[in-house]
């Protein structure tokens, strides 16, 4: 572990991140609101901090980055970005407590979309833009962006990429990591552009369309309106959002294949079929469940049911209805969605369809070998064998996910939060969804969670976004031994 070198890279990342603050500053200048000064201060501090770190360790060079260093850079890099990203909130006139500012910032970067803001519409435009923009940056990954743009990360980019995009079966779209990263960002930006256009065609202002796109594509869920998407109450917008939330929940390498003119790639992918199948099934179940009891017409039931299921399973977290008033079955299905999550390689969170699917297959393999003790049976995906160590890492991931989920909810309940809330708040944070149940339901927010609880949820969000291993490794003593 070469700490000076690691810190130098983190310095570069922080510096680079500080420069992105120029966008909300431009927005603030355009609307001439009070966010400009806090943003300028934050940018100054961030750029300076990054530069000092870089300058101090500038002589430490290395040709490669080891796996351990890659994990440390990504884990610490995200922590730094979360803290520096909180500065604009902290310096603003809307008197954020420090923990609230960090909560809002990390919730943004990790694309959770959990908010402590009670009156969103009162916040200045520049700051709201920043809040949406950090979700967009965090969605495809700030480190993937750096790998794509900064040539100095070079070969080591790969370790960073693997630590930030820890897909169970990593796929490299192009021979070089830098090209892969930039292809992913281009696809991401292109789909985002399409959404902005479609939202504006529906009559949304450019500002709102941009902010909402910046939170749909990374499956974030921040809205510029107090009532979230329910504010617009329009079938057109609901449909556009459902479509783009689904898009964001699909593996981006499939989008890339699609754009290269291979439309069949989508359908050939078994994870995509699983994801779509699950969504369709759950939408039908929820719609039938709320039809009659909540909504009088089947159309209405379908509209709200579909929106909520897609919003939760893609881990976006927009709301068009207060699903806490829905029957128990629908609520439980939504809770289940929080755990399933979107596809691997998408911007969504949760356990990921690929892992769920492989887990089912693995269980079937166990049952099969009880019936045929001598059978040779390998778990396959899309016709390719999944090796034992990949399977093991998936089972390890699940065990850690459930273990950390249980641990954190017990702690939260211990701080004095009620049963439903502590359960749902942790599920919604670790799965990067946003709204949960109880005190943190779709029409409430996280402001009422106690001080310590907020810090714990911040940690959960980071765990979920970097898929457990990259963050949890920091608390393993072995990691720090020489």
């Amino acid at each position: 572990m070469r700490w000076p070198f690691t810190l130098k890279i983190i310095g570069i990342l922080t510096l680079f991140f500080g420069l992105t603050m120029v966008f909300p500053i431009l927005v603030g200048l355009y609307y001439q609101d009070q966010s400009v000064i806090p943003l300028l201060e934050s940018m100054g501090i961030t750029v300076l901090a990054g530069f000092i770190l870089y300058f101090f360790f500038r002589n430490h060079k290395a040709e490669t980055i080891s796996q351990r260093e890659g994990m440390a850079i990504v884990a610490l890099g995200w922590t730094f970005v979360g803290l520096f990203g909180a500065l604009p909130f902290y310096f603003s006139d809307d008197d954020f407590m420090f923990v609230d500012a960090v909560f809002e910032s990390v919730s943004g970067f990790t694309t959770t979309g959990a908010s402590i803001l009670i009156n969103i519409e009162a916040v200045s435009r520049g700051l709201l833009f920043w809040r949406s923009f950090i979700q967009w940056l965090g969605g495809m990954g700030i480190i993937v962006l750096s790998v794509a743009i900064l040539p100095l990360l070079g070969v080591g980019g790969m370790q960073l990429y693997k630590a930030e995009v820890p897909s169970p079966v990593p796929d490299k779209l192009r021979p070089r990591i830098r090209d892969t990263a930039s292809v992913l960002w281009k696809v991401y930006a292109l789909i985002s552009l399409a959404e902005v256009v479609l939202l504006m065609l529906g009559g949304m202002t450019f500002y709102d369309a941009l902010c909402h796109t910046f939170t749909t594509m990374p499956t974030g869920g921040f809205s510029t309106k107090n009532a979230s998407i329910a504010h617009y109450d329009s079938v057109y917008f609901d449909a556009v959002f459902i479509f783009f939330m689904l898009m964001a929940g699909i593996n981006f390498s499939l989008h890339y294949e699609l754009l290269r003119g291979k439309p069949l790639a989508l359908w050939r992918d078994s994870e995509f079929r699983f994801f779509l199948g699950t969504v369709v099934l759950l939408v039908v179940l929820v719609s039938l469940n709320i039809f009659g009891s909540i909504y009088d017409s089947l159309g209405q039931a379908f509209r709200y049911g579909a929106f909520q299921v897609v919003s939760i399973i893609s881990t976006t977290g927009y709301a068009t209805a207060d699903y806490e008033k829905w029957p128990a079955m629908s609520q439980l299905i939504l809770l289940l969605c929080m755990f399933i999550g979107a596809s691997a390689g998408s911007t969504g969170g949760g356990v990921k369809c690929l892992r769920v699917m492989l887990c089912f297959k693995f269980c079937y393999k166990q049952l099969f070998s009880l019936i045929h003790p001598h059978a040779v049976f390998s778990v396959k995906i899309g016709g390719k064998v999944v090796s034992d160590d990949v399977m093991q890492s998936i089972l390890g991931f699940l065990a850690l996910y459930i273990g950390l989920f249980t641990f954190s909810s017990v702690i939260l309940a211990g701080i004095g939060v009620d049963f439903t809330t502590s359960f749902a708040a942790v599920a919604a944070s670790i799965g990067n969804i946003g709204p949960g149940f109880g005190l943190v339901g779709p029409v409430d927010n996280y402001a009422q969670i106690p001080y310590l609880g907020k810090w714990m949820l911040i940690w959960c969000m980071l765990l979920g976004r970097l898929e457990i291993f990259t963050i949890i490794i920091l608390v393993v003593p072995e990691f720090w031994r020489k």
Partner: protein
Amino acid sequence: MRVVIVGAGEVGFHVAHHLALENIDVVVIDKDRDTIRRISDNTDVQTLIGSGSSPIVLEEAGIQNTDIILAVTDSDETNLVACLVANMISPTTKKLARIRDADYDKYHQMFSAQAPHIDTIINPEIEVIKTIHQFMNIPGAVDVGEFADGRLKFVGVNLDKDLRLAGVKLSDIPAVAEKARPLIVAIVREEELIIPHGNDCLLPGDLVYLISEDHKLLDTLSALDKHHQPVNRVLIVVGGRLGFRLAAFLEENSVQTKIIEKDPDRCTFLAENLNRSVVLCGDGSDRSILAEENIRDIDVVVTVTDNEETNILASLLSTRMGAGKSIAKISRFSYFPLMQAIGIEQVVSPRLSAINSILHHIRRGKVLSAISLKGQQAEVIEAIALETSAIVQKPLKDISFPKGAVVAGIIRQEDIIVPSGNSVIEPGDRVIIFTRRQAIPKVEKILSVKLEYF
């Protein structure tokens, strides 16, 4: 540029690593999951698990848009089939294959003229035998290479403690050493590569790279206290494929050869197929057999077993027992820096030879050969100066040459010119450029076409 490499063994791995550092798109195919994991963890390349001779896998690797396919698996047959399939799917791709079986030697031309249309067949063993032969004849050489069809030699030597030229400035050397002035292109001092100027001095312990005309080489080296000793008796440890080839080669050059082999069946084979060599059945690291065969009178011991640790130990043992010098075959690159410290100076590596022969086919511009130095920090490139290139018809001092690269020599027909600031490169000249790895892409650029053409 895009390169597909079939086989991620030591050669595939290092070529891939080398190319990836130069920002070339590399796709590596191998059957073995663990080998693939090793390469994808260490190198920025795309990987595919599968058989490189399968058309489906090759299509998946994007063979149609590939400039060069390199088949370097351990199996000659797989390499041939991979090239054959690549030729069917994508005839325009340049094909390079490693073929090691001696039976194919006479048919190399046929493979390029007919069906698989393999552009270049690489046989590292032929290269290694050539290198061993050069090591025997060039005193003190730790690295050798040839330019201009062998008229010009590129040699690396370690300088001894009691060096006569120690502390002498490079610009003063011609005055001190009467017979020949060595043209020193690089010095490796404490693992750091230096491109020297006139004010730099030679120090004992330096590894010095120099270029010399073939007939002046021995004089040049004796200025550096490396004196030639004729090689009359050679002992080869283990008569594997390489040992057998080497023995046959030495027989042709009328050198007395002894060859030690453990396996009795193999010994019979060797005895049947070699004429004048003495075949001994025994262990090459056995003191008694070495003493029995008068190891003191042997000029060179060549250890070419498949196990590098055995090679190292057998070499050390035989020099300790009084052999003139030893040459060891070492494949693992990570051992190279250790060799000098433990007292083995001359090391051959089939893999490094393979990499060198592969590299010059991958270089752009009219590159005739490219030799990478043992530590792989730098390369020596021999290229033809094109009329369109930015380096011609201007004095060297006016050319904005990439940092870390120098023109080490200019060959114009029969003459070899040692360049100075006022030398002018004419179109058609062969230039020898010494360059650090970082500068290679820029060197390629200036060699191919003038920049402003784009």
